[in-house]
């Protein structure tokens, strides 16, 4: 696939369809890829990579890139297309300036999961029929591939591309039984005390590095309320438990109805906080209370929080009426 | 004026006599009106004035049928029957003041008297 992508990219650059390509650049190790814009065929040949570790969602970079001179080629995985579409809907990306090639998605891998098994000193990773062969300075190690799948790929919601100019590989479809709300439901069925303790343990790990926010395609504000000293809630550090809660509640609320569930927030969290559960809670509530809604699926529908149904919307008291204690 | 007695009546009846607007509907609807020396609206008014001794000495307290028509129809929810009841209780609770004693009963019985009435009478007229 990587080969075909490189060839196609060079073709499109050569025929003038695009002047730049956004993709991923190989790093020092087997897994540390960096999103990058390529401007020449040489750069592409030497550095372009698309493998098991190219999980980063490049949609958000297109806010800026689509405003630059010339057209840019973007390789988008299915989940990335949802983010891209949502940004189109919010008038953040100039669609004409992007040539989208849909590429097959994951599952992508998480190097952290290798290390958590004690596999360190990694020199190379080969994926053979579902088994990872990891070459390390301490010798070769193997592990089943599915145990190394990135959290955000574990419950993939769709392998369908909702927007593209060109498609490479087979088109997938929406996965209805992704089970992506199972963990949310599990938490919902706990007692309030248990949920409180769960989230306290998770959120107390937060170092407020803002990686979740800065990587999030929905968090595309020019100036975030948490950085704006006039907003009244700006704060640089999670000085106490309230700040930790406040940041994550407000962040999740601000992207509610706009979050496409791309999972980048949890991927980048240095402390492995399952932040996607907060977003999925909102998505689950929205689906259950206001009807199925998938942000980014289209560019015209009204988002659930900027919409209402006068007769059928439930009252907030529904929170008291459902779920465990 | 016996304030303690008034307080006791008001407390035991739970009635706020000040709600009465003196329409007289209680007396207008009372089936025992003609039997009574003092009528339901007078009970309310006299209790308000503290003029209770006269009521306690009057036969009127035993003439009330406790049919609650006055309670049902009072537009202000004053509940005169409860006042009458409270005055009656105040009377019979005094030592030796049972209005009825068991020995009196056989002489008063007649065939048409329902059993329930006897029980009711005991409840109403004795402590």
């Amino acid at each position, binding site marked *: 696939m990587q080969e075909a992508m490189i060839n196609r990219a060079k073709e499109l650059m050569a025929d003038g369809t695009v002047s730049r390509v956004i993709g991923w650049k190989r790093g020092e190790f087997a897994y540390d890829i960096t999103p990058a814009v390529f401007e020449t065929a040489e750069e592409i040949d030497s550095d372009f990579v698309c493998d098991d570790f190219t999980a980063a969602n490049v949609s958000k970079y297109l806010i800026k890139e689509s405003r630059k001179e010339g057209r840019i080629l973007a390789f988008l995985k299915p989940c990335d297309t949802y983010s891209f579409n949502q940004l189109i809907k919010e008038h953040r990306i100039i669609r004409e300036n992007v040539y989208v090639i849909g590429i097959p998605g994951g599952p992508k891998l998480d190097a952290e999961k290798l290390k958590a098994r004690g596999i360190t000193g990694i020199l190379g990773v080969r994926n053979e029929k579902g088994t990872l062969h990891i070459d390390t300075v301490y010798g070769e190690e193997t592990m089943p591939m599915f145990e190394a799948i990135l959290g955000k790929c574990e419950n993939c919601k769709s392998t369908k591309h909702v927007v593209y100019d060109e498609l490479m590989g087979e088109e997938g479809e929406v996965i209805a039984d992704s089970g992506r709300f199972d963990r*949310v439901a599990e*938490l*919902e069925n706990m007692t*309030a*005390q*248990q*949920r*409180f*303790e*769960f*989230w*306290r343990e998770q959120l107390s790990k937060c170092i407020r590095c803002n990686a979740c926010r800065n990587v999030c395609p929905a968090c595309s504000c020019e100036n975030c*309320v948490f950085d704006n000293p006039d907003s*009244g*809630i700006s704060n640089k550090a999670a*000085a*106490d*438990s*309230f*700040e930790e*809660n*406040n940041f994550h*509640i*407000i962040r*999740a*609320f601000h992207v*509610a109805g706009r979050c496409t569930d791309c999972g980048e927030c949890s991927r980048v969290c240095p402390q492995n906080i399952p932040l996607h559960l*907060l977003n999925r*809670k*909102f998505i689950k*509530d*929205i689906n259950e*209370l*206001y009807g199925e809604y998938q942000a980014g699926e289209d560019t015209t529908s009204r988002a*659930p*929080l*900027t*919409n*209402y*149904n*006068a007769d059928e*919307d*439930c*009252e*907030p*008291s*529904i*929170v*008291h009426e459902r*779920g465990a204690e | 004026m016996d304030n303690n007695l008034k307080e006791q009546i008001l407390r035991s009846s739970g009635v706020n006599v000040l709600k009465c607007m003196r329409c007289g509907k209680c007396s207008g609807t009372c089936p025992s009106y003609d039997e009574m020396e003092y009528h339901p609206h007078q009970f309310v008014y006299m209790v308000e004035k503290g003029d209770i001794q006269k009521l306690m000495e009057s036969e009127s307290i035993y003439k009330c049928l406790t049919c609650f028509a006055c309670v049902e129809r009072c537009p202000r929810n004053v509940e005169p029957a409860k006042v009458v009841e409270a005055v009656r209780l105040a009377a019979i609770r005094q030592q030796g003041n049972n209005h009825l004693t068991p020995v009196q009963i056989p002489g008063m019985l007649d065939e048409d008297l329902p059993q329930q009435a006897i029980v009711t009478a005991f409840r109403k007229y004795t402590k």
Partner: protein
Amino acid sequence: MQVNDNNFEPVIVAFCCNWCSYAGADLSGTNRLNYPTNVKIIRVPCSCRVNPMFILRAFQRGADGVIICGCHPGDCHYTSGNYYARRRITLLYSMLDFLGIERDRTRLEWVSAAEGAKFAATMESFTEQVKALGPNRRLEDLRCRKQ
């Protein structure tokens, strides 16, 4: 001061829309309908003006309960504000619940300008409800706690 069950007096913030609920609160005053002093009202133009930030802010600063009152659905002075508020607040309350914040600390009630009695009764019952929960500890900012 040691807070125990007997002397716990919750701080309750009520956001009331100017057109219905604030007027309803005024009406309960006009009708001399008593409700607990714990309730302090903040006037907002519409229930849709209530930003989740305000609710969290109240809890941060030591509120033990937050109630939002707006016009009945269909009665919004601005035609649709309370419908948006209804969705937003539902989702926010659900999220607070998800984080294990006691759900009885939050409420939304529709109170019209004519419902002075309902306003007073609502505040009475909400205060009781919050009192029963005790002080807000799960969403307070310790730095703001009264010494």
